[in-house]
């Protein structure tokens, strides 16, 4: 922060009023950045819990590897499971994506659902008129969804 103020004073501004303005602006930026950092810091306990579960559960696999018997190795033992048959073909085959349009629809409408949260969580603060454009947005999305559902129902084009 100190460094950036010096940068402003020496190069861009000579007028004292504008200097003060720039100082306030930078202070505002600084406070905002701090808030963002605090916001992200709140989530550190979620990451802590994630890490704790890994640290607590990985030993279960290691202990299991240490105490369990590992004898009588033969190639058949490590074959993939195919109900007793000798496996044929590849494991990761091309899978027939019969329901592919639903995945395309998901990409669009999942974002729509999250956009609705931005509106829904601030609904008590915004004026009631602001609901009208939202209803228009929903109308457009309903039309799009109906068309997409109709198209995904036509199995022969997929």
């Amino acid at each position: 922060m100190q460094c950036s103020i010096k940068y402003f004073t020496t190069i861009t501004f000579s007028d004292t009023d504008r200097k003060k303005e720039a100082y306030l602006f930078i202070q505002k930026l600084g406070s905002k950045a701090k808030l963002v950092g605090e916001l992200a810091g709140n989530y550190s306990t979620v990451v802590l819990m994630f890490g704790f579960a890994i640290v607590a559960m990985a030993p279960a696999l290691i202990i299991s590897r240490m105490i369990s018997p590992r004898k009588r190795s033969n190639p058949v033992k490590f074959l993939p499971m195919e109900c007793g048959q000798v496996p044929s073909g590849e494991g990761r085959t091309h899978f027939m994506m019969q329901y592919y349009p639903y995945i395309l629809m998901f990409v669009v409408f999942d974002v729509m659902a999250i956009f609705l949260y931005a509106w829904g969580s601030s609904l008590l603060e915004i004026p009631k008129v602001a609901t009208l454009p939202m209803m228009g947005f929903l109308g457009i999305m309903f039309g799009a969804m109906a068309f997409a559902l109709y198209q995904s129902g036509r199995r022969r084009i997929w």
Partner: protein
Amino acid sequence: MSVIAPKFKLSEFIKSLLDNAFWAVLILSLIGIPAVMTVLFFIEMPVINGELLTPFLALTWIADPSRILPIVHAFMATDIFRVMVFPGFGFAALLAAGTIFVERKMLAKLQLRVGPFYCGKVEGILQLMGDGLKLISKEIIIPAKADKPIFWAAPVLFVAAAAAFVALIPVAPGWVVADVDLGLLGVFAVIGFFPIITILSAWSANSKFPFIGGIRALFQMVSFEIPLILSLLGVVMLTGSLNLSEIAASQSNFPWIVFLPIGAIVFFITMLAELERIPFDLPEAESEIVAGWLTELSGMMYGLVQLGTYLKLYAFAALFVVLFLGGWNGPMVVPPFPAEILTEGIVLGPITANIPGLPLFTQEMLNGTLWFVLKTVAVIFFILLPRGVFPRIRVDMLLNLGWTKLIGLAFVNIFIALGLLYAGVLGPGGLQ
């Protein structure tokens, strides 16, 4: 039939135990305690109750265990305690273990079987421990040509993602691991990890049945994530907050299920689908594709996935309770801590014990936890029940249900919430 130790002799077993105890005591007293004391003299010790903690003070705990209580208090205020024990991993794992046992006994009763019976003498109460020991002592077989790092990491990541979900659930007022402003969005973010881990595990196994199971899990997530997200929007609109603690606290007068029953039903159905439980257990359909994406997991890897599944079940049930059933709110039934213990101490005949650190938990916290656990257990019961009642549905029925019926009902729920808000029934100036 194999026996663990064919030449077992009780006398030799006891002798080995005594030998081990002798060596443990000898090593502890000659090396352990001096080493601990040496280390303690170089560590900066905390100040507890206005008294600097020294190793000598710490040794007095042996004579008077009640002196540990202030330290326990200080420890309970830390994040580590919350993550490891109370609203976090230990509490959730305990409830998950209880759920597994209750599910097995309940399904057995529904199907006129007995269920776990012999292990632990009393109604098979130690069956879970026996299963755990069995799984940990089994060999882990990894299929040839599998992608080994991903295959090993997937079960651990599954448990970790479930634990991160648990971290966002508030159990009692102020008792939550991560009290974040966008808690509900955090929940959606964590839910999004499960299908990724599923499909990574399925892909890395390089086998056909897991691959099909993984693809099915993907479809199931795709068709049920949107109704799941939309069904909770009504609650957020009425509360005006995404913080789960605030949402729970806002239901002190009445739970939201009273006004948003359709949203609760949609959320419950999508919850069953996200948990991959019957009637939506397509990814692990055991009568069609062996065990779905779990086919190649063996030994403790399967055990970890099961633990993660039940942690996730607890977390979803708890989320339902927090959003629709009022979380920790309920009438005060826990009696207050007896005041004479605080002033006079515990009197046992001629002995009077003064324990300054009591009580460990406040009355509100105990009452909130009690109501939360009762409601969560009730929701878990309703999650377990369909497994004994319903058959599995087809993939196209699943997609149709998710994309047309549930999304439509979720929008009906949103409009009900909007109507309640704009008619003045709820929100500012209304009932709440």
